């Protein structure tokens, strides 16, 4: 629990809605009325820093400032919570290594394709993409493959951490000592990730609402997007899931957090009941017409 004192500037319902809607249209993150207190408290820090005396003025600052992209980016740093750790949701990772990857590998080998591309959307401080890289290195069967793991996040602050790739003990709460020994070196009571892992991972800033930039990422075989779309409202969820659909290759997998589902969001993905987890897959459509995407 991180404690901070109470907000000194209060936010009216109208100001809350104006700022909330502006954030929503920027990146899809939706704050319902119950989180007004949280928004008010976190934004107070920005107001103090900018020497702005009211939320109305702050709204004007965001609305009329040409450089508001920069402020919105700083705002995201304040608003998004980023707590994560290596090897999170082990059952899903087991499905990834034991079922999903072997299936994709077999399929690709048949057609002589030796490229594997994985996107960690909302990668926060980088534990997830580096976990994926370690798992693939553990498998020792991709020696002559081109592997690319792309981690993206909307917060610059967390990406800085991800690029630095130095982690404290709280990131290792479910990491086996074998992985720590093999892929990390200790440095001032922290752990630096090994170059062989880092080499597989590219970290980049991305707003999931920025469809043009998503296209630049290229097609993916697997997308991890765990505990990200919970912050979106239904419309934003639909928009982002549609982006994922377009980005995935046919037969590619979408892995959401264990409490997340696409029910009422999209019918485009098939639900696959694997031994270790239930995951979403972009169905094969081949030459079939009728796909709207």
């Amino acid at each position, binding site marked *: *629990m*991180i*404690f*901070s*004192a*109470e907000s000194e500037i209060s936010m009216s*319902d*109208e100001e809350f*809605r*104006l700022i909330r809607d502006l954030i929503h249209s920027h990146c899809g993150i939706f704050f319902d009325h*119950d989180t007004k*207190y*949280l928004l008010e*408290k976190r934004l107070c820090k920005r107001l103090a820093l900018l*020497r702005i005396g009211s939320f109305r003025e702050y*709204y*004007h*600052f965001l*609305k*009329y*400032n040409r450089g508001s992209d920069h402020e919105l980016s700083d705002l995201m740093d304040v608003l998004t919570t980023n707590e994560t750790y290596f090897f999170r949701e082990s059952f899903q990772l087991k499905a990834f290594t034991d079922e999903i990857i072997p299936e994709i590998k077999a399929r690709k080998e048949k057609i002589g394709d030796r490229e594997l591309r994985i996107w960690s959307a909302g990668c926060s401080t980088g534990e997830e993409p580096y976990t994926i890289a370690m798992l693939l290195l553990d498998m020792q069967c991709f020696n002559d493959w081109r592997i690319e793991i792309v981690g993206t996040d909307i917060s610059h602050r967390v990406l800085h951490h991800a690029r630095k790739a130095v982690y404290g003990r709280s990131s290792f709460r479910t990491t086996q000592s074998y992985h720590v020994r093999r892929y990390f070196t200790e440095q001032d009571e922290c752990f630096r990730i090994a170059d062989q892992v880092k080499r597989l991972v590219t970290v980049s800033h991305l707003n999931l609402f920025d469809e043009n930039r998503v296209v630049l990422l290229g097609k993916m075989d697997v997308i991890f997007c765990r505990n990200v779309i919970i912050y979106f409202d239904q419309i934003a969820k639909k928009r982002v899931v549609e982006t994922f659909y377009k980005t995935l290759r046919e037969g590619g997998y979408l892995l959401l957090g264990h409490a997340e589902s696409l*029910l*009422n969001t999209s*019918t485009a993905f*098939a639900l696959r009941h694997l031994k270790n987890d239930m995951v979403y897959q972009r*169905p*094969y*459509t081949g030459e*079939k*017409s*009728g*796909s*709207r995407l």
Partner: protein
Amino acid sequence: MYKLQNLKDALFSPDEETRRLAVIGLSEYPIAKTKGSLFQALGDASWRVRKEAVELLSRIDFSPGMTEELVTLLRSQDNAGMRNAAVEVLVRLGEKAVPVLHPYVKDADHDVRKFIIDIMGSIGNASFVPLLIDALDDPDANVSVAAVENLGKIGDHRAVDPLLNLLDKPDVWLQYAILEALGRIAVPVQVSAIAPLAAHGLLKKAAYECLGAVGGIEAVPILLSGLGEKAKNARRAAAFALDKIRDTMPARIAEEAVDPGLRELQGTPVVELLLECLSTPDTAVRKAVVKILGVIGDKRAAGELLRGCGDYRLRSCCLQAFQAMGEIITPFLEKEYYDADEGERCIITYLCGEMGLQGCTSLLAQGMLDALPAVRKEAVVACGKLGLVDFIPDIIDLLDDFDEDVREGAVVALARLAELDKKAVEGVAEVLAFDKDPEKRRDAAHLFGALKDTERLSLLMKDEDVTVRKTAVGTLADLKNKASTGHLLMALVDEDPEVRISAALALGETAGADAVDSLLLLLKDENPWVRCAALKSLGKLKGRKALHAVETILENAEGAVMIAAIEALGEMGGGRAQGLLERALRNEDEEVVKTAMSLLARNGEQWLGKYREALILHPNWGVRNHFVKLMADLMGKEAGPYLRKALEREVDDLVKGQIRDLLERYE
């Protein structure tokens, strides 16, 4: 046609994806040719196919005949998926389905009647209310209870009397549903009609909830006794309802009518029963219980309140509850501190400062050495709040802490102590002013501000680092000392816009007419926020020259500059400004309109009548919301008829809620 037939055939494919794509493909053909296939898809074994069909049908312009056909799908006894999908489409059709649905509320099939009633509730059209009231007498119990539930969902006050008349019927299930429905409609009801049901074991919870929504001051004794209920859910409901009623009362009435009864519970077993109620995931209930515990003021609640501070949603209520308990919690905090986790140590140190608990000094000394930066920060800030000058050397040590927040906290503390030990703080500031680190020089500026030392601040305004200059200007501005005008005028030519903004704003607070010419020049600054700052200050300094300059700016301004110009006009006042403000009510930018309204309201209500209609029907919800609030503030009770008329026409929930609150205030 060949392709259409292929799509229809594909709906029989064993492959789910093929069937789903077939549904999508059917969207390209006229509904007359695909209706049968789409209705068939509503009953598909796969939810993905059904959902796709629902989506597609929801976008189609249904004829009454087609709606009738859709209703017949509700008769499908063996396909629950199809019935549910048909319900979903009918609900999504909304108003368009209304005339078709009416007769089916008397259908011979009780399942269909129940589906139709549920659909009516979800659509929420007012024309359904009389039909649902009739359905209260339906011979099928499921149907009559559904009618009760959906009358509650629609929330129409016409349902209140028929529902109250049914309360006598000795059917617990029905009574429970009625209590819930009355609670949702939330129209005030005689407490005596509900109170007897609070004695019934199975109905206690619903009765208390209902009282919270429909009861007033007369429900307080029943709810106070409900706090001691054996059943936890009933107790929670009573606490929630009591807090809700207390919240709607003016503070003076609550203090007289509710709080004495709560304070009498101090030292009784009810406190323990209420503490048990906190083990619910329902935040709203937990908040209510915390607030009630705060008013009771029993020390036994302190532990739970401390843990409650760990949840951001409860924190403010818990802190208020602690505040209400006062100094009696000092021994508890001292004892708890040494076994507390990191977060709790933060809260304890924060409370010491916030509540001025002088008995906690040893705890704060410990806090300043804590391993967690957040604790050190709260402890050092608390030392400042408590005026602990003996701790100044320890506070100075924290100026070099590795954590930025702790360093900032140390500066805040020293600034607070400046009045009590000027010499010591002056000594620190002088050393910091010559530090090679700009952050330290910024700290010096804050401390010179606390010492009101304008001379030292003016030197820091010439610092090579922009952040130091900005801090010095801002601090000088806060002092509002007219003698600083010369320094501030010089800062207007600083190369950094942030410094120019700080200086321009400061001049508005401290300078006289001699600063106007410089501020007028600043209206040509390349940075719009500098222009805004200059306009704000010109508004404060007033004068003919300033008014003319603002008028000129208004011709071409937009966005933030336009708003600042209007605000300046508002500050200047006078007939000329009034006319320009009224013109701004027609501006395309809703923020400009809102600003103009607020400024016009300062001079009275004479403009309201002329613009009322246009502003109540303004396309932007924010403008409407702002206008109804101003109208109520200016006209008081007289605004009632206009507010009611606005409520009838309003479509936005937030604005509707605001109008209802305003009407409640004056009625």
